[in-house]
């Protein structure tokens, strides 16, 4: 086994004539915190959408832990071990916090339960249901959301909603976690806390994390390596400090 978790080869997509992303080559090592940065419209979220199966890449392919996942559906990709959060929060708003996480646990093999078993309330149903709830509480504890587990998720403050989304993604037991602007809309304290949480879950759950972020402080405090995108092409790649000081990158951000 190599120590590469995610590998993309010449990954690209075009919408009509517009090349949204092209020639993306990433190699993310296991347990690495990898950043994907770039100005608005650079194609960062599109990369996430390709990696999670929302879009089919027009060129290239990608491998998770050596297994090619291109062309699989979103559900399959999730089961193979890629989970994500969304830039504009997508929680199940009419469900309580704990149930949101339990949806994330839905596909875990240890909680398998036939619908008809549930409809007839056979013992297996209770068994999986109770264990699921315990597990969900455990995950929520990590994020400090255990106290609010019975609130409706739409009633949570913004920062906690972001955390809940990460918790829910974590519940699917991923190998690779994609975080789409996790610190957006958080105050400095929350951001600091989030940095600790991200580091903690990486160690605790043995995760590889790829994140999109605008907050340069956040990125440089967290990521080992980054890739800078602009207009769908790679501007710079490598260690965080070096890549951020690349003249091309500075030009793209400050405008030259």
């Amino acid at each position, binding site marked *: 086994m190599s120590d590469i978790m995610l590998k993309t080869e010449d990954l690209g997509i075009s919408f009509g004539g517009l090349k949204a992303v092209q020639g993306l080559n990433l190699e993310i090592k296991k347990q690495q915190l990898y950043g994907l940065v770039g100005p608005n419209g650079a194609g960062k*979220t599109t990369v996430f959408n390709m990696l999670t199966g*929302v879009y089919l890449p027009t060129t290239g392919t990608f491998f998770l832990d050596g297994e090619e996942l291109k062309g699989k559906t979103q559900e399959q990709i999730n089961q193979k071990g890629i989970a994500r959060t*969304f830039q504009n929060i997508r929680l199940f708003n009419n469900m309580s916090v704990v149930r949101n996480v339990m949806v994330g646990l839905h596909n875990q093999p240890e909680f398998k339960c036939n619908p008809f078993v549930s409809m007839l309330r056979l013992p297996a149903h209770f068994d999986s249901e109770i264990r699921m709830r315990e597990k969900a509480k455990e995950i929520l504890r990590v994020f400090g959301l255990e106290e609010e587990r019975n609130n409706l998720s739409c009633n949570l403050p913004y920062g906690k909603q972001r955390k809940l989304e990460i918790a829910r993604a974590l519940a699917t037991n991923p190998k690779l976690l994609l975080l789409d602007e996790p610190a957006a809309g958080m105050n400095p304290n929350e951001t600091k806390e989030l940095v600790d949480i991200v580091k903690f879950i990486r160690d605790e759950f043995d995760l590889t994390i790829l994140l999109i972020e605008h907050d340069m402080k956040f990125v440089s405090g967290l990521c080992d390596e980054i890739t800078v995108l602009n207009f769908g092409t790679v501007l710079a790649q490598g260690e965080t400090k070096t890549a951020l000081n690349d003249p091309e990158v500075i030009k793209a951000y400050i405008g030259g």
Partner: protein
Amino acid sequence: MSILLDGLSLGAVYALIALGYTMVYGIAKMLNFAHGDVIMVGAYAIYSTLMLNTNPFIAIAVSIVVCTVTGIVIEKFAYKPLRGASPLAVLITAIGVSNLLQGIAQLIFGSTSRSFIIANFGTVKIFGSEISVGTILTLIVGAIIMVSLTLFVKKTRTGRAMLAVSEDSGAARLMGVNVDRIIMTTFAIGSALAAFASLFYIIRIPSTTPTLGAMPGIKAFTAAVIGGIGSIPGAMLGGILLGVIEQICKNNPHVEAYTTAIEFCLLIIILLVKPVGLLGKRRREKV
């Protein structure tokens, strides 16, 4: 040949009704289930005026006025309070309005069908087949209406405002378009078209019942969806397609009984192949 022409004229009727559905849908984003019953109102309006006055033109004019007013009143009292509410609620209200119109008609005119004749049209011979003048009239007037509607939407200020509202009503409001008035205008135009549709419909079948509008309403709605709901040329295309197919089926003794089933199967197949209808615009979901 006569089947085809007959189908085209039935198609024109469907297209006129479908235009009402499609315009209201495009602009107010709601299914006006009561639209079919506006046709029924129009038919009774013609019937009542013919009872008093024998001039069919006055009857037609009265019918147009009555339908337009009905459309505006429905919009004002049933749909306007629900603007911004869940579409399901609006749909249910529309169904309620449909029942209400049918109930009122039944209360006034009774549930038995009333037969009457607007005018006696003869038949003419075209390419060796007998064709009723009514059919040809329907075709010509229908075509004129559709062309002028297209021009209206494309060329006039109000028409462009309509397009703007259908794209993004919020943005249109910010640009100074009076959205409420545009929606009302749309209902008025749609209902006026329904009046014409009712005229042509009773030229084909010269009698009226309180449930007259139900079936053509559903068929026209189907036509609107086939063409791509929200699209004006789509409604015309869908209507004419459906009309022609209906006439062809009806004149074939093997499948005659299954006409309705065939038409609706066509709808399902088209939607499965093109989920937004023939000329509909697809919208993408943002992830």
